[in-house]
């Protein structure tokens, strides 16, 4: 097939990106169906979310950013000026590395060892006196932290560091995936609604209103309780309920773009709506999307943590919220089990807030929060 042919085809489906997206998406869907109806587990449910997110991000975030390298560099210069943002970025990178490579160096976070339970972190020492019902005596055993368990152990003798590491993975997964879903959905709805306007806009926005009037957390707890907690499901639910805000923001942004010269020009040249939306509008809100995404990740992470905290987390994985829940039951004996995950949660959210803030300032210095 000639270059020209490809170009024409691309023009038909609205941009070379779609030319790639469409087959990929179909492939993805086919594997999913295959998985559901015929064979077991080609990918895990989370795996599918990852793939979907990966494709979309690659085509509509990475690609545009790559094609306009100079702009990105310019922005990066500006972001760099914001020390806190850089700090946050550093922490997030650290967290990602921790989540990916940490498990290689830490013991199995579910390996219990009752001999070595309630061990304090390195540099601390705790004195625990156990009442022996048999003898009626107190056995006081003083333990002090060892490098074997840098962050100590919980009341099952599980290595807290290992749990934190796996928790980091969970939080990031939830944060990124759920936000990805929410933002993708929100962007699509926002852009389409703004661009097509009229009836479509009306319907979509009413729908958004309905979604917005649902008490978010109640709905979340409700669904999770009824259909049982599994990480993939939690991610999905958060993603599918969290897009409303994004949709609104993107919509208002697009409305202002809609009447810009280059869009009108594209129209005048008879480009299809699909093409205009995907090839002209979306790339122009990418910066906004990135900002929104970064700023909505904290909320998602906290939502998951809150769920686990009230006992609706996925029992199969060790999440920070879950450690926290366990920890606050025995604050007086093993304070570290509650404090460490709390601090991690706090730092993570803080980091994302810093970065998001930095990005926003960089992209649009005089925008409001």
């Amino acid at each position, binding site marked *: 097939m000639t270059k020209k042919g490809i170009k024409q085809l691309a023009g038909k489906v609205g941009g070379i990106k779609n030319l790639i997206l469409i087959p990929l998406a179909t492939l993805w869907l086919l594997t999913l169906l295959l998985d559901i109806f015929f064979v077991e587990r080609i990918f895990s449910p989370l795996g599918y979310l990852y793939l979907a997110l990966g494709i979309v991000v690659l085509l509509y975030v990475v690609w545009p950013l790559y094609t306009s390298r100079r702009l990105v560099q310019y922005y990066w210069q500006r972001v760099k000026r914001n020390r806190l943002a850089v700090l946050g970025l550093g922490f997030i990178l650290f967290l990602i590395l921790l989540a990916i490579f940490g498990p290689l160096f830490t013991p199995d976070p*579910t390996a*219990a060892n009752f001999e070595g339970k309630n061990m304090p972190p390195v540099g601390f020492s705790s004195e625990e006196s156990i*009442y022996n019902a*048999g003898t009626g005596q107190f056995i006081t055993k003083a333990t002090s932290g060892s490098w074997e368990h840098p962050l100590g152990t919980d009341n099952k003798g599980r290595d807290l560091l290992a749990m934190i590491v796996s928790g980091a993975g969970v939080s990031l997964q939830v944060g990124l995936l759920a936000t990805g879903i929410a933002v993708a959905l929100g962007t699509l709805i926002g852009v389409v609604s703004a661009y097509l306007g009229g009836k479509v806009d009306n319907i979509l926005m009413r729908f958004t209103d309905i979604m917005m009037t649902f008490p978010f957390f109640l709905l979340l707890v409700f669904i999770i309780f009824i259909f049982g907690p599994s990480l993939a499901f939690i991610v999905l639910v958060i993603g599918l309920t969290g897009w409303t805000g994004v949709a609104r923001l993107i919509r208002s942004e697009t409305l202002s773009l809609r009447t810009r010269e280059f869009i009108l020009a594209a129209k005048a040249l008879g480009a299809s709506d699909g093409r205009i939306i995907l090839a002209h509008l979306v790339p122009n809100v990418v910066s906004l999307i990135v900002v929104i995404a970064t700023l909505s990740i904290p909320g998602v992470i906290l939502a998951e943590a809150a769920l686990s905290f009230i006992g609706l987390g996925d029992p199969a994985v060790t999440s920070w919220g879950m450690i926290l829940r366990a920890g*606050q039951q025995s604050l007086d004996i093993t304070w570290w089990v509650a404090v460490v995950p709390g601090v991690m949660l706090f730092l993570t959210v803080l980091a994302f807030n810093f970065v998001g803030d930095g990005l926003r300032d960089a992209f649009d210095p005089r925008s409001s929060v």
Partner: protein
Amino acid sequence: MKRVLYILLLVVIYWYVSAFSLLLFHSPSVVSQPKQEAPPPAKEAGGVFISGTSAGDAETLNWILAADSASLSYAGHTVDPLVTYDNEWRLQLRTAARDVEVSEDGLVYTVTIRDDLRWSDGSKVTAEDYAYTLESLMFSDWLNYPYKSDWQEEVGGETVFVTPQVVDETTFTITRQTVYPEFIYTVRNLVPYPKYIAVKYEGDVEAFTQAPEFNNLTYTGNLGPYKFKEWLRNDKFVVERNPDYYLGKDSGAPYFAQYIVKLFGTSATAHAALEAGDITYTGIDPDKVSKFKKMEWINVYTVPTTGYLFLAYNLRDNGWEGLKIKEVRQALSLAVSKELIIEQVLYGFGEPAFSFIPKVSPWYVAEGVAQYGVKPLLDEEKAKELLLNAGYDKPVKLTLVTNAGNDERENIGYLVKERLSAIGIEVELKFVPWATLLRKYLMNKTLGTDEEARYNNGVGAVSEEPWDLMVMGFSTNPLSPSGQDVFYSTTGGLNFFGYSNTQVDELFRKAKSAEALDEGARKELYAELSRLISEEQPVDFLAFQLANAGFQKNVRGIEPGINMGYNYHLWYFE
């Protein structure tokens, strides 16, 4: 800064104003009680007893509708049963004038109640009320009394209710057609509903459910040590001293001006409240006991309970087929040390269990019961050998499930995993939410049929998800262990693990029949049953738990024991 302070002041004022304006709409759920002057009690009555719990709230004070234990215990503060027991199972007469009398043939139960029992309107509580409660409420179709089966018997293949019969104002009889010796315990627990009120709602379940008298316990007269005052859902249940309490005539009991059940979100907060002296009593988690034992202002009593933990073996077709072999089950039990579990998980607060009959039960027998899981029957070599003889020389992989969030069970899971690995059995742990556990692992149905899933759908049925081992905890009634047939008899409604043994079924049947009328004979039956069960190992009984009750030191009159609360109307503040 002055400005800020000033503004804060404004906020407070604003808040008050708005709050007061709300007062107009806001109606707290306090029930106005007729003010009656309390006669000066013999012993100085006073103080508020606050009992903290992190368990869930009750569902209703209209206890006859309730299936949850909290509801029954709430109502229990205001109405006494016929007879209760002290820590040694000695009878304690309450509303009964003398203990329930059983005829020679064990079919007729005669109840004589006190003649000084009054409803709130001053009218006498009569045998008529009891008979009415049974016949027109508990036995009725419209009310759907959850525990009607307590009063039913199998006659010629069909289920019929027992027949109450009023003899005179204070006497009534209950006649069975079949002998069931332990029926007496059910009778002793009987609590009446006021006929004069109940008739108003008879036949209309909705009206009955919503009847204010029942939901606010306004009828209880002098039947209980306390009178209902307030119930703030999910927060507290408040009862106040009943000056007319029939047991308090001379003693002046009860001695607390108020008794409050305070609900906490987590046991941790309840503990904190006890430590801070904000509440009078709460149960203490095993791992916190030492801490509270050290506080000189707290008394911690360690008391036996009827709860026991066990490791269920899935004997259904979707479990490891090896488990169907007795020797294999024994092998597993041989490898799991009960002392270790008690020490590591229960912090020493437990008794090794070898059958479902606890030490505190009058029917408990030790001799002849195979004590798996403690030396000498704690022996990995022997376990391996048994497995080998059973033809399992290769290592196997089993799944152990239990409900997530229950620390004790999870920990036992970890320990079992560790112990079994020693005899070449690899255990994969699976912690799932309670609801999931019930739906996917306990409930079962025969594949291919459209019968609705139950906890026991017969031998052929299997659960939705396969499993091999399950850590579970239930409790037994020390007085009538025969009730445990719901687990261990082939047709038992909670026999989710699919155990079936004709001998066991037979023994259960006997224990519930005329053959058990003589207590000696019954004891022998139970002894046989426990021996058989301990040999059979349908499940691996792990431990009976000991509970720890933490009280503020100034509470007097407590008798620690299995029925610690039996004399709580005599407790007082020093």
